[in-house]
């Protein structure tokens, strides 16, 4: 499994830095002489996608500007730079929708990029103005073009992508879904894509770091999670990490937390697989998505102990009890994907897991081993969908509990900040954000999106209920901001098969399955 690490946003970049740090001895002159390459653990490659030019150019010393130094490595890209300032499409979107796609540092609204993406994807008028840019969706095309060369879809060797984002931040939260959608829309429906999302911590401690208050962060986070978990043909797994837990383990140090996150991921990305146990990403993807129609939630549980004989049980015990990086009840998991490092017996690992999660049979536990350090052994268990017990939302430390609180916070924010969400004049409460002015059309669409009967708020309330009842999944129906009709279509109900994209087809399939379930039919 050789992943392409794509860090999106500030936090994504910092964590990606940890992943992509050069294992080699650093020296520019020496590199020129030896013809050396950037070497990372496991041979992973990666890129950083950022929106804030200041953050990218001035504060960062690791990633190089991909537009100016395309042969350097590793690189960062600012995708919205693809649209020149004053370009007709820039003007047209501003005029029609009120969105300034050249704005420095994205508006810290998760739906902002979602909206921009939908505009590019669906508005033919806008698409018609993109001819000179040779791209129908320049921002996301640029992002994909930055990532693709490292993948097997390009000339690279990475057979899967891992997006690293901060859920509740700005860029990552808003960017990840559109980019995933974009990847799928290019016809790469079965290419493994995972997202490692770090949920912003509770409280106000992160407000300054994330340039947004808790409620807004939670709304952004949950919007992003919602889209990730409901988009058919989207990601193959959302690895949820609670930044609260990370920081508690790292004494509140963000840098340490980033480093810890990298360490936790080593069983997943490091090299030195056991002979015959080199899982390609599609295999992991297949295991991860099998028997589940929606993108699954994967909760990482990590442990690291000094090497000793018979350590499998201890590792599993440690991981499932103290090593959970997101609150959950392991016994609710319907699958376990195990990556470990050390001299470990896969049978014993399975037995140990089964000991903790009796409902998991051995065939629902995949174990892939690597050789690690001699002194320590490590175990990373990705528990699939470790939730679903009724009433668990009341138990602190469960997934239901955590997400229930986030959803509640988001709903509260929505209820109390309607002008902010609808960009009504004078709304801005943050000195960081300039005021946006959107068109009435856009505002209406946003109002429907957020507050409509089948809008986000309503869906979140339903989701809360599902969490309380222990229903899986809790997010089901995908949402759109804009519903732009195709003027070529005769009837919205007429679907010309040869014109539907795979993504659309998948979405239709999901919708039918949902309807059938609601009708009580087993699918």
């Amino acid at each position, binding site marked *: 499994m050789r992943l392409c690490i794509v860090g999106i946003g500030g936090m994504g970049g910092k964590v990606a830095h940890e992943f992509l740090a050069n294992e080699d001895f650093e020296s520019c002159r*020496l590199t020129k002489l030896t013809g*050396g390459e950037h070497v990372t653990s496991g041979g992973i490659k990666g890129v950083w996608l950022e929106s804030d030019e200041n953050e990218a150019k001035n504060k960062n010393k690791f990633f190089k500007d991909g537009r100016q130094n395309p042969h350097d490595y590793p690189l960062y890209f600012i995708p919205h730079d693809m649209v020149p300032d004053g370009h007709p499409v820039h003007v047209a979107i501003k005029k029609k929708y009120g969105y300034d796609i050249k704005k420095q540092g994205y508006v810290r609204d998760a739906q902002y990029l979602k909206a921009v993406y939908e505009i590019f994807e669906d508005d033919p008028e806008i698409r018609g103005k993109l001819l000179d840019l040779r791209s129908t969706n320049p921002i996301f095309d640029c992002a994909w073009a930055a990532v693709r060369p490292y993948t097997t879809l390009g000339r690279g060797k990475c057979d899967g992508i891992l997006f690293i984002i901060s859920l509740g931040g700005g860029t990552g939260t808003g960017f990840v879904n559109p980019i995933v959608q974009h990847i799928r829309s290019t016809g790469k429906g079965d290419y493994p894509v995972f997202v490692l999302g770090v949920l912003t911590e509770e409280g106000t401690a992160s407000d300054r770091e994330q340039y947004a208050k808790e409620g807004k962060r939670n709304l952004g986070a949950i919007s992003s999670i919602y889209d990730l978990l409901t988009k058919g043909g989207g990601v193959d797994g959302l690895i949820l990490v609670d930044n609260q837990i990370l920081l508690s383990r790292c004494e509140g140090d963000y840098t340490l937390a980033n480093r810890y996150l990298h360490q936790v991921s080593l069983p997943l990305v490091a090299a030195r697989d056991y002979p015959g146990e080199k899982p390609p990403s599609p295999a992991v993807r297949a295991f991860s998505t099998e028997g589940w129609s929606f993108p699954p939630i994967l909760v990482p549980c990590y442990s690291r102990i000094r090497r000793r004989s018979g350590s499998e049980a201890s590792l599993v015990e440690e991981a499932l009890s103290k090593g959970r990086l997101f609150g959950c009840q392991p016994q609710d998991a319907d699958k376990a994907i195990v990556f470990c490092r050390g001299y470990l017996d896969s049978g014993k690992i399975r037995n140990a897991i089964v000991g903790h999660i009796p409902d998991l049979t051995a065939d629902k536990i995949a174990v892939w081993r690597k050789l690690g350090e001699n002194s320590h052994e490590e175990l990373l268990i990705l528990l699939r969908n470790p939730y679903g017990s009724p009433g668990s939302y009341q138990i602190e430390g469960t997934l239901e509990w955590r997400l229930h609180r986030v959803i509640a916070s988001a709903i509260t924010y929505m209820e109390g900040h309607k002008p902010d969400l609808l960009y009504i004049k004078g709304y801005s409460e943050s000195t960081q954000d300039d005021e946006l002015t959107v068109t009435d059309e856009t505002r209406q669409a946003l109002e429907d999106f957020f507050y409509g009967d089948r809008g986000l708020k309503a869906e979140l309330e339903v989701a809360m209920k599902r969490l309380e009842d222990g229903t899986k999944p809790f997010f089901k129906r995908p949402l759109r901001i804009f519903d732009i009709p195709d003027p070529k279509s005769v009837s919205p109900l007429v679907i010309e098969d040869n014109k539907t994209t795979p993504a659309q087809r998948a979405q239709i399939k999901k919708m039918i399955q949902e309807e059938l379930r609601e009708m009580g039919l087993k699918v």
Partner: protein
Amino acid sequence: MINMKLYFSAGVIILCLLLVTLTPASGQDEDDYEGPPPNGDGDAGSRDSSGGKSKLSLNQFVRYLESWQRDNSDKYRYMTQLLRQGNPESYKVPYIWLYYNGNLTVSRNEIPKIYFVVENPNSLDLRRTLFVDLQAKLPGEREYHNVNQIPQVVQPFDYVVSGERNITSLKKWPEINSFTQIGGVGEVKLRAYMHDGTRDYYSSGRSNTTHPHYGEMTINITNAPPQLFNATLVGPQSPRYNDPLEYVAEVFDPDDDLMAVRLHITDPAGREVRNETQEAKSGRVSFKAAQYGFFGEADAGKNFTYYYSLDDGIDITSFPPRDNPNATFEGPNIRSTPKLWVENLHVEPVDKNYYYWDEYNFSVVMRNQEPYSIEIPVTLKIKTKDKNWKGVETRTVTVTPDSKRIYFSTDDAFDVLDRGSDFSFRFEYQEYDQNNERSAEMQWYEPLNQRLMKYDLVSIPIGINLLFVLILPLLGGIFLEKWMGKGRLG
């Protein structure tokens, strides 16, 4: 005479026949030995069955004679004596002369083909054994002397009949194989001398001989003089009086005589100053000047010449020929030998550490004892545990009558192999010094320093070396990695 002989023989035969027929057949005794009985060969004269006397055939008679000679030799001899008793004066004088068909002027080393011939008119039974010598009379001699050692013998039966004559074939003296054996040169008379035990006969008694027959032969024997070739003087171009000089020449005598080879050394005026003689046969002769003491110190600065004379006992020849007394071989020209005074050898290193790479000032005090300046080449040589008098420098220096210190400054005297070694040094020159030597040497009391490296750590050479040593591995590692690419992702 021949008829007489024939009649005599016939008479003997008849008498014998008569004796035989009249003698009774049986009752033989020793005195009446008749010879063996006939052997039944069918000859005439076989015994008849009545035992009576038979006829005697010739063969039988011959057999009788043979048996008598064999079985009763004394009687037989007496018989023949009786039969022979006749006129003692019937023994005839044999004749001898020389036979020579060659040139009458010969060289001493030629092989003489001189033969003799004897004619003997006596019958076989009267002939005597003859003994023949070759005699010669040299110029100025009065008497003949024998040339050969062993006389040749002519046996009574050693004749062939040639017509009515009994004559020998040509005989020679085998031991005489050179005219040298005759013992002289000039007009030599030769004759043959013969005796039969009672009388002497000389070939010179015959006067009516014609070539190639001689009673007395006069032959002119000449002598081949000795020759000399490749006369050379071996030695230095401009030798000193005591330099090794050798007079060398090739001598040759056609007669293979032992020669007396004499070397004459002359002054430029042609006056002989000394000579030496060696006896030698054909081959190389040499006269070593040192061995014979030809030259002394007093001869320094003088020029000499030389010539050879060869005496083979008969002739004396000079080389070059002395028809011109001034004709000589040139050399040697003895160079003058100034005497040097050499003293106070010294060496001074520039650096008191006595490093082998340092510059050293070798010096010596020299003066010429003669009242003039000379320029002579002087060579400085060094001896260490590694070097055995290795030449360091050669210079031509001017040596004056005044003492002067001569310096040889060099940093090339020693090399790294000499470090730690004791050393000696010497000056060599081509003239003799007060000790009659041509060199002066000295062993120095201070050994060379053991240090090997010339350079200090902080110096450009070491710096460059170190740079190379320290950087090369880096480059090696970089090159290996670039080539093999082990550190790069596959």
